[in-house]
């Protein structure tokens, strides 16, 4: 789970950096979307690298969810009939990992239907598919976030992502055996900063769309 989780963390970081290109305007954002499909052409075919990355992510998803299911099952068996109650807030993030995980899974499904496959009603009414050398990613994103309920769900999902990432990165630090004081101090800081940065970076986009800053 640590390895697949870290791959997801790297993905959401790169994804957020890509998302922030929305502030550079439609042309730049759409060119980035086209570039993702033509990446490393002609060495790889059209969408080749994109699909390779998608397959890596799908494999990670299966591993991560499978690992989580096994973990929950083992934990239930091991703790016995008397579970600990009234746990203090300090373990809130750890306790909510399965919940935040399920919310994120649901969000990913919605997000793909909304902005990748353009399946209505998840996608906006004006969703348009790209062609080989054009993309409507910018327009699709704006149209999607102009629906307040979608923007709100996105913001909520990003808060949940921040929570899941903060504890997930810290747990991965343990799973990968970081014992030294210095490394652990760095890991605490990186977990928190990365989680908050990704959360706020992404949340800024629907807020900007709703405020009319990005049109």
């Amino acid at each position: 789970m640590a390895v697949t989780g870290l791959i997801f963390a790297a993905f959401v970081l790169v994804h957020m950096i890509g998302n922030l290109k929305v502030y550079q305007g439609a042309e730049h954002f759409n060119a980035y979307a086209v570039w993702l499909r033509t990446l490393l052409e002609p060495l790889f075919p059209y969408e080749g690298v994109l699909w390779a990355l998608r397959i890596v992510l799908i494999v990670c998803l299966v591993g991560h969810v499978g690992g989580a299911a096994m973990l929950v099952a083992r934990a239930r068996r091991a703790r016995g009939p008397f579970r600990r109650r009234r746990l203090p807030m300090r373990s809130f993030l750890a306790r909510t990992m399965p919940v935040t995980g399920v919310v994120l899974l649901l969000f990913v499904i919605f997000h793909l239907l909304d902005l990748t496959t353009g399946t209505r009603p998840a996608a906006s009414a004006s969703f348009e598919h790209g062609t080989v050398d054009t993309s409507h990613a910018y327009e699709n994103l704006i149209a999607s976030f102009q629906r307040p309920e979608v923007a709100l769900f996105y913001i909520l999902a990003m808060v949940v992502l921040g929570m899941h990432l903060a504890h997930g990165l810290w747990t991965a630090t343990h799973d990968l055996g970081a014992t030294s004081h210095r490394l652990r101090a760095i890991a605490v800081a990186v977990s928190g900063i990365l989680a908050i940065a990704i959360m706020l970076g992404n949340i800024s986009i629907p807020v900007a769309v709703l405020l009319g800053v990005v049109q």
Partner: protein
Amino acid sequence: MRLTLKIWRQRSGDDVGGFESYELDGAGAEFTLLEALDKLNDTIVAGGGEPVAFDSDCREGVCGSCGVTVDGVPHGPVANTPSCRQHLRSFPDGGTVTLEPFRSAAYPVVKDLVVDRSALDRVIEAGGFVSIDAGTAPDADSHQASHETVEAALDFAACIGCGACVAACPNGSANLFTGSKLVHLSLLPTTQEERGKRAGAMIGAMEEEFGPCSVYGECVQVCPAGIPLAAIAGLNKEKLRAVLRGKDN
């Protein structure tokens, strides 16, 4: 002071068990939790009843025998303190205190507040020892180890094996316990010969009876020996090292 003690009574492992309330009068705030139970038992025995069974030995926090769950927290309200060092001054006069055994599927109840913690022994039996002949005490200079290394080994060797970490864990994990043993033994010269084999064996035994770690951090709050969360990272480090090297040492 006056306290109402809600105590888990269970005649044997096969019995269902349940809470019973007792009034404890005239106990001092300086009484430890176990002294309060002693006092209560005196009253129960005088009245012809069956005393409340609980584990205890040294009563000074070094043996790891005692352990009850107090108001849902293993050992009691004061962090990093064994049951025998928890005092009644932590509770409000006239209040109610709930006492039950350490809760975990790996700890079957023997009687009342006594649980069977042999599952921890089975983890130790799997590899928590040195099987090479170390002979008599060697010359002080023959085994070179830095002061820092020895201090670190001692920090992890501080585990008294009370098993509160398992009871505190919402996953019923023994990673803090096993991690402290593995890190302690991985640092010293003579014990390194079996480092890889030990990690595989102890972690294998642990995973058979205990749950997985999700880094709740509840264990380090109750640990009377103050074992740090780094022990869990240490356990995974030993596991990764053993898997990647595939050697006994």
